[in-house]
Structures are given as structure tokens and as C-alpha cells.
């Protein structure tokens, strides 16, 4: 899952980015509204964490612009403005959530997860594909009741595929949602991670779950694509 953190106060931005990356998200960052708009123009971020008081272009303008552009990204306003009017105004402009500074980092993580579930229309925190379970809260996966030992990147890739269960996702989709903007886009990185994930998931005697559609991408399913 790919996030964008828009925060002008450098120490806070650094800690947010570090914490979110460690939680397994691909994170881009911006310190002003203009950069935020430039980053988010592709709509590849699942959640944008947006401050309101920003230099150059303020957060509410960023929010309005993204909603006018029908950006699919969910937006969480993270701001020191705490009055009911501020919250109402932010949510009415199209924000999906609102969190007041200072906040508990775990709460921010929980809210981001809830937003991602909403985005992929998942009611449950546990995604199931056949006998594969992906627990998005505790961030781990099981096959036939046996825990899989996945790295953060591998888990992020699996969760992304699970959220898009039965849908073909291209390499660039995976690239955009799972990897940081800063990571260098080497063409076979996605294939390498898919290979690593397959080794851990696919087991003899159990049905194949990760399928390759040549020239199009990958999909996670019991049978063929939907």
C-alpha cells in the first residue's frame, strides 16, 4: 500500500515517514501543497496524510483540487486545528478522516488500515483466498493454518494482491502501490518479489494461488481471473 505524507514540519514528517515505512507501507513525502499535488497527480497513493497549514498551497486547497480531479486516493487530514468547524469543513470538502495533532502513532496506523479496507471494500480485517488468510491488522499471513514467514515487502505485496483478489494487477500497479517513490524502478524487482512470495505460499498438494498472465501482470485467485 502506498501512502503520501504531506507535512511541512520536518521533524514530524521524518518520524511519520519512518514509522509508516517500518509498518510496511511505501511512503512518499511532501513538505508543501504544491509538491503534494505533483506527487498525487497519478492517484497511485492509497491514502494521503495531509496537513492543513502548508506553505505555497494550503492543505484544504490540495484536498479540493484532488477531489475535483476525482482522485481515488483517500485523504486523512492530520492537523493541529481541533475545532468542530475545522473538522466539519475538512470532511465536507471531501476528506475521509480527520486526526488532531498531537496524536498516538498507533491510532494513525489503525485509521490508515481502516481507510485501506474501505478503499478495497473489505469489511473484515482478515482477507481470505481459499485457505490463505491475510490478517491486515496484525500484518501476517497463514496458509492452511500455518503461519508464513514473510518480510515487510513480501507482506505488502501479498496484501496488495489480496485486496485486489481475482483482478489482474500490472507490474507498474504493484510498483506504484508497494514501493517508495525513491526506490529505483528496476524492471525485474517486482518479478523477483513475486518469485520469493510464491516460494513461501505455494506448497505441494495445495492449489496454486498466484497466477501469471503473460504481458499483463499477476493475480491472486483460487481459479482464473474474474
Amino acid at each position, binding site marked *: 500500500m502506498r501512502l503520501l505524507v504531506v507535512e511541512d514540519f*520536518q521533524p*514530524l514528517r521524518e*518520524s511519520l515517514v519512518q*514509522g509508516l515505512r517500518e509498518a510496511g507501507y511505501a511512503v512518499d513525502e511532501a513538505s508543501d501543497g504544491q509538491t503534494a499535488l505533483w506527487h498525487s497527480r497519478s492517484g497511485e497513493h492509497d491514502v494521503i496524510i495531509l496537513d492543513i497549514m502548508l506553505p505555497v498551497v494550503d492543505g484544504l486547497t490540495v484536498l479540493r483540487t484532488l477531489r475535483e480531479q476525482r482522485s481515488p486516493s483517500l485523504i486523512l487530514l492530520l492537523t493541529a486545528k481541533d475545532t468542530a468547524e475545522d473538522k466539519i469543513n475538512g470532511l465536507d470538502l471531501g476528506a475521509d478522516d480527520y486526526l488532531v495533532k498531537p496524536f498516538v502513532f498507533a491510532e494513525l496506523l489503525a485509521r490508515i488500515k481502516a481507510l485501506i479496507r474501505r478503499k478495497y471494500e473489505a469489511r473484515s480485517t482478515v482477507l481470505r483466498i481459499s485457505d490463505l488468510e491475510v490478517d491486515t491488522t496484525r500484518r501476517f499471513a497463514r496458509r492452511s493454518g500455518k503461519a508464513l514467514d514473510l518480510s515487510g515487502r513480501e507482506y505488502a505485496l501479498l496484501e496488495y494482491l489480496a485486496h485486489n483478489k481475482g483482478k489482474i494487477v500490472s507490474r507498474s500497479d504493484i510498483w506504484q502501490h508497494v514501493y517508495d517513490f525513491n526506490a529505483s524502478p528496476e524492471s525485474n524487482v517486482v518479478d523477483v518479489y513475486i518469485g520469493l512470495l510464491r516460494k513461501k505460499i505455494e506448497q505441494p498438494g495445495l492449489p496454486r494461488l498466484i497466477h501469471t498472465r503473460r504481458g499483463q501482470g499477476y493475480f491472486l485467485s483460487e481459479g482464473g481471473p474474474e
Partner: protein
Amino acid sequence: MIQSLRLRLLVHASLAVALILALWGAGVYYFTRHSLEKDFNEALLTQARAVAATAEQHDDGSIIFDFDPLEMPQFVVKNHPDYFEAWISPATILRSPSLGSSDLPRPPAVGPLTYTDIVLPSGKEGRMVAMAFPVASEHDEAGHFFHQQNSRTMLLAVAAETHSLRHTLEQLRWLLEGLCSAAVVVSGIVLMLVVGRAVRPIERIARDIDGLRESDLSVRLAVPDVPSELRPVVEKLNGLLTRLETAFARERSFTADVAHELRTPLAALVTTFDVCRTRQRDESAYIAAIDKSRQVAQRMQGMIEALLMMARADAGQLAVKLQSVDAADLIDDCWAMFVHQADARGLVVHINVQRPALLETDPEKIRIILHNLFDNAVAYANDAGTVRISADVSEGRFHLEVANTGSRISPEEVQRVFDRFWRGDESRANTGVHCGLGLSLCQRLARLLNGEIEIHSEKMDWFTVRLTLPVGTPTGQIAMAGAISA
């Protein structure tokens, strides 16, 4: 001191009315008494003349009174009689029948006419007129010439009761006193009504003022139906309300700003701690987190101190301690703290300071100003840009100019740099060191020292701060400057 305006008006007006009436009453009383006494005295004198006219001197020198009780019954009657007594020679005394055997007090035989208040033989108060006059002889009537040769002088006293005069005057006094008192009471009541009506607008304004709440300062007092004397007061009050409303709005937004500006670094601290604790880390990661937190805490401390100092400057509580200082030394001292940072950023620095630059001022305040200006210049100059510091004394004033290249502030935005919490383009600068209070603090401090700060800026060009200070500052004006800056 009477606090109520109504009562004060009432008391003063009533006192004035009472005084006027008392003077008038006293005037009437004394005038009437004077004329009544004059009438009384004249009546007494007429009586005396009538009595005297009955006296006649015979040829043998004896004096005979041709007194007829029927003609002058007042000297005979039992009730409230009049009296007379005549002393012709020391031995000869003639008394009115009313006197019986008692005497009137004998007047000294001087002066043609004397009036004396006496106690009458009846024990009542009375008045006596005494006169000395020559008695007419028989021949006078016949037209003889020599009457003056052996005419004799008679001393005559006539007295009458003054009871009725006193009574009349007493009645007049009572009447006047009663009238005056009644008039004072009536005028008091009338005044009370009039004053009550007159102060009613004041009471209405007082009610209106009482209805004002600090939560809603947009209310204004109605001006049109206020008496013209009170209109300036109401207008001044409305002006005050406008100023208060602006000040309150400013304070409210300032409080919100402070909350916002403190919450953001606080969020950075909490998030840094939270993230740090999510897993076991190696020592260097903890040290980095501690260093970062310390920097954030330092920024918060700086912000709180700047806020406190501004609040004190605004409240006129910032003491100014004047000393003779060389501003060139101060500049050297302060700049020393930024040399390293300027080198690290690859800045070209030009310093052109006239020595000595002697000032009578508060060095601590100057230090704070210099620190802020240098800090801004080094932090906001473009990479490998230029910082220029120049200072001199001319025309009795000290001039300091601190400039840096790479300004991101347009000429239109220049005045906003003095707003609390305003930062220019923050994308590069908001590293947690600058909180947007420096220049507004500098401006207040400069004003406190009777100086002024001006700023010029062109985008992508020079950002220049000019500080002007008087070389010597009279102390009296400093206190004023502190109060005005609020």
C-alpha cells in the same frame, strides 16, 4: 463624597434652593422688622411729643402737666398700658397713672432722643423713648420774648409694650420659615422628578453597558436617542468596544495560533517516541531520536521564551537597562555564533562595521535582535549566497543593515514578516528551528529602545533588514515606548 449623580444633583440643587429661600426670607424678615420697629418708634415718639406738649411752665418756674386721662387713655388703662415719666428737676418726678409708684429706668440726660429696650414695671418687655426738651412757658403762648431765659429742661421717657410687635415679628418669622421649608421640600420633590428624568438616559446606557458580554463584543450602544451631552461618552464607548473587539479577535486568533504552533512540535515529539518504541533498535537510532527530540524541544522553548518576552513588551513589563556599549563589539560577539553555520552553508559574508559605534542602550535587547537577524540571514540565504552586515553612526542615530540573498518574500508580503507565526516559504526553512516569532519580537524590542525596524525584499534577490536606534535614549521616553507598543 456622594457617589450617585442623581443624589448629588438633588442635594446640590436643594441646598441652592434652600440658601436662596433662606436669604430671601431673612431679607423679608429684616426689612419688615425694620419698618415695623420704625413705625413703632415713631408712634412712641408721637406719644412722647403729645405728652410733652401737655407740659407747661408757670411764671413761678413750676411745671404743670395738663394731662387729661380721657384724651390719652393709653396711660391709664389696666391692660397693656403705655407709660411715661418726666424728670423736671432732680427732685420733681411726674409719672403716668399706669406707672403707679414704680419708675422707668432714668435715661442719662444726654442726647436729644434715645430708644432703649427695657423691662416694664409690669414685667413685660417694652421699649422706651427718652428725650430732653425745654418746657414751653405760659408767655410763649402769649408771644413773650423772654421765655428762653428761664425755661427749664425736662427729661421725658415714654414706654410701651413691645409684645404685639414681637408677636407680629414672631408670626412673620414662623410664616417665612414655614414657607421656605415647604418651598424647599416641594422644590426637592420637583427636582427629584426632574433629575430622575434627566438621568434616565444614563441609567439606560448603564443597563446597555451592563448587558455587554466579553463573549459578544459586536454589540454597540445606540447613539441616536442619547442626549447630546452624553453622545460623546457613548461614541467614545463604542470606539472602545471596537478596539476591544479587534484586540479580542486578535488575542483569540493568537491563542489559536499558539495552540497550533505548539501542537505541531508536540506531535513531532510524540510521533518520534511512538515510532522509536515500535521495535528494538540499535543505539545510534535511539541517539538520533533523542537528538531530534531535543532540537524540537529547544524550538518549543525558544518559541515560549519569545512569546513571553513579547507579552511582557506588550504589557510594558519589560525593563530596559541602559548601558554605554559599543555596538560593534556586540555585533562581533553575536556573529561569532553563526560563523560556523555560515561556512557550512558556503555563504559569502561581508561585514562592514564602523568602530566604535557607541550607544546608550540595553545590550541584552540588542543581543536578542542581532541573534534573530543573523539567524534568519544565515538560515534563509540561498545556498552559497551572500550575507551582508553593515553598521554605522550618523546624524545621531545608529544604523544596522543585515541582508541576505535568495529572498523568497515578495515586496507585497514584506509587512507580514512582522506578524506572529508568519513564515515565508517554509518548504526549505521549517526545519524546526524557526517558529515565525523572531522578527515580530525584534520589532517590539526595537520600539522599546525607541528604534525602528524596516524590511525590504525582492523575490529571488536581497532580503534586507534595517534597524535604526537613537545613540542616546532619554529614559522617560522608554517607558512610554513600552506602553505604546501594546
